[in-house]
């Protein structure tokens, strides 16, 4: 899985590209942790437009990053999830919780973290 980074004003946008399964989870978590470190005092948006698959292990990465972001004072939102990935978020209960802000588009996610 690749993570491409872009910056928009005070928001770091991480585009997740590929499959986030057990094999990819460790590397993705390390990379996102680094981004959290550099986004201190700012905000992080996870762009899910090219994220084709998330397994149980991938969901744990989202929860861990949400926890660490809150501790670091970094606002995090997820945007543009594909329907199959959105379904995984729905079934696992992530969509109903306020722990991770899930928005329909990346622009909405940027707006959500800069409110």
């Amino acid at each position, binding site marked *: 899985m690749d993570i491409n980074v872009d910056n928009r004003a005070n928001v770091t946008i991480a585009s997740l590209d590929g499959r986030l399964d057990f094999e990819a989870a460790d590397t993705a978590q390390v990379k996102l942790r680094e981004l959290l470190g550099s986004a201190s005092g700012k905000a992080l948006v996870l762009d899910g437009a090219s994220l084709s698959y998330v*397994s149980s292990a991938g*969901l744990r990465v989202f929860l861990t990053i949400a926890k660490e972001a809150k501790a670091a004072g970094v606002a995090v939102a997820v945007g543009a999830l594909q329907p199959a990935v959105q379904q995984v978020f729905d*079934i*696992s209960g992530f969509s109903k919780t306020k722990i991770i802000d899930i928005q329909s588009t990346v622009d909405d996610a940027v707006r959500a973290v800069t409110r």
Partner: protein
Amino acid sequence: MSEMSTPGLTGISLVEELCLLAIEDDGSVASTAGEPAFGMGVVGACLVELCIRGRLDADVRPGEGDAGPQTILMTLSQEPTGEPALDAALAYVAAGPVRSAAEWTHQLFPQAGELVRKALERLQTRGVIEAREARFMWVLKTRRYPVLEGRELQEAKLRITEVLMGGTIPTPHDSVLIGLASISGLLRGFLSSAELGRLQRRIDEVGSLDLVARGVEDAIHEEIELRARGMMIPIM
């Protein structure tokens, strides 16, 4: 992902922590541990821990016919973890057909007593609890598991209350622990009814944020419904 990326701080497994929460202050096992929800929760804790340790992973697939999407368990590795309860559950799943998390919970439920025994033995080996024979009404032999120093149990309760009352985001491990402890009735062991009532929304929000744990909860709800229906039949 590395094996121990999301354990409780003490490093004991989810199933061990769930069993530890079922031990009362006097070393007796909570009466709720005799309910099917606890046994199925123990099975679920093993399945989730096996996912965390990279032996299993879960994926959502469309259900057959009218069935909704299913959380399917996949075996990634059959390498033993060294934890007897987990390895027993892994052996069953690895040798069986592809099934959903809910189906595996039903399937392994008859083994729950054995999984609990293995988890309690592991806790004894770790020096967390000890086993003592006791007599109930001077005649019946019972076994008690006094907690030795109590650090691990206190720490688990503290982490749970911090998430529920302090508003911190749970680790994946603690999210599942809260969900399974709640559905197994174990939170009643250290939170009052009034506190539980007040915290129910928070429990629902942060508990079992996990594909497998949700499948386990579905299986527990099905089992409770089936048993309730079974009890109603002779009356109707």
